[in-house]
């Protein structure tokens, strides 16, 4: 913890070496989390960039109540959800434009293939990501953080500011919901 205090102090004074280490240590963690939520390789990179800019801008607000990684996870999640909302509203505008014949831009939602998935599981995981998108936000975040980022219930609880029990509940409900969605898909 004292190492973290020292490291954060260096970040607060704008030490370039500390920022190098911050990017080096957290770039893949942020990218993987963002990618698990937004399911888009290029956009995930842009959002990761925004996450580090946000860290740079608001490091003075970091009080040290939680682990630095927990704080960074929260920023990554917030930025990803913001991006999703923007994308959703853009999609609905395009939909109405298409209806009215103002725009011919196509609304395209392609299957997402996570680069960390083994080749034999590519198709199934793409299907699973599609089903995850249909979950309520809290269930989806808990499931992604555990399954894709490999965190445990306690860590997810700290990030989402919920008890370990409620995270367990969220993941159980997410699994049950996913089973229903996938069952519908395979019976069609």
């Amino acid at each position, binding site marked *: 913890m004292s190492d973290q205090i020292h490291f954060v102090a260096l970040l607060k004074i*704008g030490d*370039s070496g500390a*920022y*190098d280490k911050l*990017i*080096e240590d957290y*770039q*893949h*963690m942020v*990218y*993987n989390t963002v*990618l698990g939520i937004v399911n888009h390789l290029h956009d*995930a*990179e842009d959002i*990761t*960039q925004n996450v*580090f*800019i946000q860290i*740079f801008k608001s490091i003075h607000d970091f009080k040290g109540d939680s682990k630095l990684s927990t704080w960074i996870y929260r920023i990554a999640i917030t930025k990803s959800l913001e991006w999703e909302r923007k994308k959703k509203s853009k999609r609905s505008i395009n939909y109405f434009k298409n209806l009215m014949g103002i725009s011919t831009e196509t609304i395209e939602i392609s299957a997402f293939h*996570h*680069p*960390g*998935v*083994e080749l034999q*599981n590519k198709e*199934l*995981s793409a*299907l*699973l990501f599609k*089903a995850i998108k249909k979950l309520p936000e809290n269930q989806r975040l808990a499931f992604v953080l555990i*399954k*894709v*980022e*490999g965190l445990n219930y306690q860590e997810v609880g700290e990030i989402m500011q919920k008890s370990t029990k409620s995270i367990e509940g969220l993941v159980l409900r997410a*699994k049950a919901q*996913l*089973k229903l969605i*996938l*069952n519908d898909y*395979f*019976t069609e």
Partner: protein
Amino acid sequence: MDTNIEQQVDDTLSSLDMVKRAEISPYFKTRMKGMLTQMQPEPVFLSFKYTIAFATIAIILTVNTILLYQRFNQNPKSEKSVQSISEISEMYHFNSTPVLDYDNQ
């Protein structure tokens, strides 16, 4: 639930069990460092330049104020100079004599 479908659902759910962490492009760090450097506050030597500029402006303004103050205080002297002008005009008979009076002489 059909056993086959159940198996497919389970396989799909476990398809992320062995997932590895996705890694960002190797150029990301360099790009990000460049971006953060641009966002850094202005270097010290640049702000020193501004300090010098402001100090020069302050000096110019102070000198101007002092000069104006001195000029304002010189007013009694200017009265003296007016007096000396009237003495000279008297000495050289530049007194303003009305033209009509001159004609009457």
